[in-house]
């Protein structure tokens, strides 16, 4: 029996995994992977709720925009990482403690 809670559980697991990745990793790109996981878990929640609770498509639109924002975020975030790497020769998160250079 597939219910709302099963989807919530999956998105929950995804979310927790994302958080764990974000804290455990010291590699900036790996942290971005965690962000993607978290965004996906949110998107699943939106779609699941819209499917089970009010059955219109607003959640789909919301998820669509989450995907768009995730793409934009990945593009800009990775650009920053690459730039950081060019300057510092490192993608260690603890090297990125200062805003200036």
């Amino acid at each position, binding site marked *: 029996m597939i219910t*709302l809670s099963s989807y919530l559980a999956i998105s929950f697991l*995804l979310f927790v995994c994302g958080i*764990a990745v974000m804290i455990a990793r010291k590699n900036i790109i790996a942290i971005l992977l965690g962000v993607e996981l978290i965004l996906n878990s949110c998107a699943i929640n939106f779609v699941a709720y819209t499917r089970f609770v009010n059955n219109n*498509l607003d959640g789909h639109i919301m998820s669509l925009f989450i995907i*768009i924002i995730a*793409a934009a975020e990945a593009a800009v975030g990775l650009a920053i990482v690459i730039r950081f790497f060019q300057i510092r020769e490192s993608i260690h998160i603890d090297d990125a403690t200062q805003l200036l250079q």
Partner: protein
Amino acid sequence: MFDNFLFISSAALTVCGALAVVLSPNLMHACTYLLTSLIGVSGLYVTLSADFLAATQLVVYVGGVVILMLFAIMLTGGNDNKSVNKFGIEKIAPMGNIKTFTLAGLSALLMALVISKIIVNVTKAVPKGELPPFSSTVEKIGELLITDHVLAFEISSVLLLGALIGAALIARPRKIES
């Protein structure tokens, strides 16, 4: 029958992929596992009858974001120094160490406690409804995008424009004025 199979397999793919991302010590492998997790999410969308979203997930995430990540890994992974990991500075640190994993585990536990509480409360509140029949969403999404959400539609293009220009500006090697 098939619904359940699809759901279970996608869920397994998603969760296993996510767990593998957490546990994998190799960045490239983690990225591959993320790929499987994302494909699993796409399957979940299908079971939620969000077929358009599923395809978008495939196109944008699998075809776009993951490739972007892979490229970024390759662009930052170059260091001929043998004393370090393939993709980082120190052997262990970039993918975490015992301390960070402990911290992560604790935080995850904390979140798990809270969110499980939320989920329990929510599932109590929401009536257990049957899944409504499967239907196509493309046209409906199209209509919504140009009627109710037209502003968001247009503004998203501005967002993308900003992302494009910003990211290109950042990634472009340039001279820094001293």
